[in-house]
């Protein structure tokens, strides 16, 4: 069965993030005039990276089940880590865990189970700050990502295929990105094709959030439609995980497209060992 290769320190896989840092990301997200799309994107990628590190974390350190690549595109195209990881193209997840740009102390509020609110101090690692500057050279960024992913599958021809997570508002300024996206998903290991997930951040206040639809018919605009069309179908394990652990009702045709939503279950669904169903 495809997408069943073991993910381990001897057989790691690649998470490639492609993040839109163009000027249009300065627009506000729906119903929050003081929050820009760039802020939502920075929160999303910091949250995703935090979850990947946590999945690999054990008491002795972070196990290198994954390598991480982050390509930003806007005023320039290239590796986009901040802080001490700046300029690095491929970073083992242990380095990501141990070298965030900074760690912020925040207060997490949760239900205390007795009608009150429990406040806990938590440490929030930050790898990215919001950036919104320049055009949207999406095709160029996809081409750079293609080269990195191609080298990875040549190095790990039998590994779990790389996962590319693309976070954007969809408005490319250097051409139609469809072919560039297809050339990424045409890459494959013996375990399956490279997975491309499009995480769409939009200013459209009239559209409702969507997660992993099986049809693009009700999507709000042509950018959404394009990103849906080019996204990979979710794997069997991902659909099963989403349905059993997140109470979703995804069909076989569900694609890796999210509109103003959360994509963290993609990371939770990857099999690197027993994940308790009661872990929250």
């Amino acid at each position: 069965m495809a997408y069943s290769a073991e993910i381990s320190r001897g057989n790691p896989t690649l998470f490639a993030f492609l993040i839109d840092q163009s000027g249009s990301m300065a627009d506000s997200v729906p119903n929050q005039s003081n929050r820009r799309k760039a802020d939502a994107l920075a929160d999303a990628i910091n949250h995703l990276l935090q979850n990947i590190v946590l999945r690999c974390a054990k008491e002795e350190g972070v196990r290198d089940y994954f390598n991480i690549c982050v390509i930003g595109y806007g005023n320039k195209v290239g590796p986009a880590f901040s802080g001490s990881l700046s300029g690095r193209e491929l970073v083992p997840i242990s380095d990501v865990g141990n070298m965030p740009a900074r760690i912020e102390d925040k207060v997490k509020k949760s239900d205390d189970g007795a009608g009150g609110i429990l406040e806990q101090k938590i440490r929030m690692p930050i790898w990215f700050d919001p950036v919104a500057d320049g055009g949207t050279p999406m095709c160029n960024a996809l081409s750079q990502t293609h080269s990195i992913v191609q080298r990875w599958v040549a190095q790990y021809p039998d590994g779990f295929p790389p996962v590319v997570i693309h976070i954007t508002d969809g408005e490319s300024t250097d051409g139609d990105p469809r072919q560039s996206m297809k050339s990424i998903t045409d890459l494959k290991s013996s375990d399956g094709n490279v997975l491309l997930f499009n995480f769409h951040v939009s200013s459209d206040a009239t559209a409702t959030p969507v997660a992993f639809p099986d049809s693009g018919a009700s999507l709000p605009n042509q950018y959404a439609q394009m990103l849906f069309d080019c996204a990979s179908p979710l794997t069997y394990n991902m659909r099963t995980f989403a349905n059993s652990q997140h109470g979703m009702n995804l069909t076989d045709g569900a694609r890796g497209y999210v509109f103003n939503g959360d994509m963290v279950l993609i990371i939770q669904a990857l099999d690197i060992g027993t994940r308790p169903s009661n872990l929250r």
Partner: protein
Amino acid sequence: MKACVNAFSVQKAGNTEDEYEDSFWPIGPRDEELPARIAAADGATDAVYSGIWAKLLVRSWGKRRLDESRFQDGVNRDAKLWRRIIRHRKMPWYVEEKARAGTFAAFVGLELDYSQGSIAGTWSAVACGDCCFFHIRESELLTSFPVTRSAEFSNSPHLLSSKDTDSGDSDQLSKATGTWEEGDHLYLMSDALACWFLTRCEEGFVPWQILTEVTLTGEPPFADWIGELRNRHEIKNDDCTLVSITFE
């Protein structure tokens, strides 16, 4: 009458011995006077200090600090102990965050009893998660507990948590009882081996034959045998634990 208990274990291929997170009780080959308590547990990969948690649970079961009738109270005591053990350790942000979510393990505990002068007795078992108990008499698998089909194994079972101390995991605790006779073979297994065992049963094989060879004659050695199963992709690459019980 005594229970002859032998435990066998090997870590996931690619991991070091220190990274083995299953646990079992009693430790080492033992002839246990009846009544006796035996257990196996499997610390979750996606949790920190889960090997310590698994050790605490099997030890508590063996020493009767964890009891079927007030199971959650015993789990709560172990959860407190687990927190005390890790409390003063210096943790990077990711270990601190994971420790805050608690730790997790699958658990199966077995209690064996008998009446003086008899060559048979009773067993009772409790389980949470996918560590399993199997009872074999001659050529028949009498009991498969708590999992009965290989398709029931998954990567996200409900496990015993150090966190659910208020709500309790009692609803998720499975219980079973039965009787044993001299000549029976009882086994406790962590999930990868248990899944292999049930799969072979479903395919019409009698996997306890090889288990008898491995556990009673030592040939092939347990780690070598598991290595062969992994090479043939018959078993998932995971920590493997087998506790064998016979009577004499």
